């Protein structure tokens, strides 16, 4: 029994290490791609590593109190918790993580969890821009949770399960079994909600640099920032894996996982490059209109 727990912990750490590096490289590659689209040379793809190291090597740090410490910890816990509940590679022993039946509900909670922790931390920072950023971020994530929840309910009704592993299992056997094909309406709702969740343009008003300096993390510096930067890679990768599992058939090998999540990520990047930023009321309104209606439709189909 003890041995099983230790192996599990070992697997979890290895899996986290993999996703952390993958997330950082993903961000680096994407910065490069965006730069090339702009006709620039762009930063090297290992730039996110250097940035983290730089923040870590700062000699002083300012804290504003206990919640200020806990904010980034909650945020990182949200990202890691989310990742560890999702099977990254279907059928793999060590990348299966701690997926269990009913994890879908917990996952939806964890997407929100980090944001709430960050609200407490950034609030104690006392900077008005942090408070504004948090308020905007929370309303936007709440709005995008509505179509996402509807899409998830539709999937749960379709497969009669609340386990991500089972949903992935049901999609094995070729592209024709993917939920993208078998349930296109839920996929549409889910992928539109995904745009709102990824915090890229047009849904990044809560950290708009020209308007409110970087939003919630305004007061965070040095090692606190390291936690937030690490979370950025883990959380983004975890969300990508979640959507891959829900709609695009999951992955049976690391290579497949990398290709699929990379393409899913490029979807929000391309949308972000093409469309300008929404104001917060515009984005909430947008998310509660078309995506939510599509989500309702997806649920209705399965309730009759």
């Amino acid at each position, binding site marked *: 029994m003890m041995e099983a727990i230790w192996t599990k912990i070992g697997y979890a750490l290895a899996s986290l290490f993999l996703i952390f590096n993958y997330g950082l490289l993903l961000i680096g590659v994407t*910065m490069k791609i965006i*730069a090339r689209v*702009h*006709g*620039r*040379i*762009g*930063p*090297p793809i290992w*730039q996110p590593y*250097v*940035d983290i*190291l*730089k*923040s*870590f*090597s*700062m*000699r*002083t*740090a*300012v804290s*504003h*109190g206990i919640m200020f410490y806990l904010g980034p910890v909650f945020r990182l816990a949200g990202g890691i918790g989310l990742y560890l509940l999702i099977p990254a590679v279907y059928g793999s022993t060590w990348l299966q993580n701690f997926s269990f039946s009913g994890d879908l509900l917990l996952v939806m909670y964890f997407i929100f969890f980090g944001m709430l922790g960050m609200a407490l931390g950034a609030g*104690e920072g*006392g900077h008005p821009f942090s408070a504004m950023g948090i308020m905007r971020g929370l309303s936007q994530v709440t709005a995008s949770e509505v179509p996402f929840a509807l899409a998830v309910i539709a999937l749960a009704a379709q497969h009669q399960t609340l386990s991500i592993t089972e949903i992935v299992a049901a999609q094995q056997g070729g592209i024709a079994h993917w939920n993208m094909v078998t349930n296109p309406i839920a996929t549409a709702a889910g992928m539109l909600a995904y745009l709102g969740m990824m915090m890229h343009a047009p849904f990044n008003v809560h950290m708009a*640099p*020209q308007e409110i*300096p*970087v939003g919630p*993390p*305004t*007061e*965070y*510096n*040095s090692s606190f*920032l390291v936690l937030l930067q690490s979370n950025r890679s883990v959380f983004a990768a975890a969300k990508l894996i979640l959507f891959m599992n829900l709609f695009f058939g999951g992955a049976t090998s690391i290579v497949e996982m990398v290709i699929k999540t990379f393409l899913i990520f490029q979807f929000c990047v391309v949308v972000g490059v093409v469309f300008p930023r929404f104001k917060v009321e515009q984005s909430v309104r947008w998310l509660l209109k078309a995506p939510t209606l599509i989500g309702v439709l997806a649920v209705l189909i399965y309730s009759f």
Partner: protein
Amino acid sequence: MDDKELKQIMEEGFNAQDYFCDARPRVVTPVANKIVRKFYNWAQANSLWILAFGTGCGSIELPPLYTARYDVSRYGIFPRPTPRQAGVFIISGYLSVKTLKRVIRSYEQMQNPKFVLGLGSCTVNGGMYFDSYNTINRLDYYLPVDVYIAGCMPRPEALIAGFNELKKMIKQGKAEGANQYAENFDWYKANQKKIIKDWDLPEYNW
């Protein structure tokens, strides 16, 4: 707001410690281990975050840096809108006394190590505003400057050359402005107070 009022607010209104610092900045020596120190310096040099704060006409030279033509991101240089996270402060030209106040506050809020680039002749000796009633003449009386970039106005290429110079200094461990400021804190404060007549800043910002 005079000192007494400020003190009153700080004592009654809120937990002052959360928002103002009650201690002088201190000298923090770099890591003792030589290999680690070199590694950290390398990281510092290759990830420079500029504080988005333009002061004089030279600030018009900053936006082109991010465009396709000059693209400083390839050197690991990015804009950062908050002093808590930024590491490089570019004083982009003449500095009026009013702006100097904000510059001091922002500079003190940046974390150690931090670097200052003086852009344009105005920061060196006052430039064409040398006899103006409301600008300062020599920047390094008020803040420790790592690199000066002379010219009126210097082109973005000159700025990039300045960045490369700064990088060299950081890698050699010579860009210790933050510690220099802490060491000579009284001297800098005295100079600042001499020129800022209506001093209403907190004595210490982090």
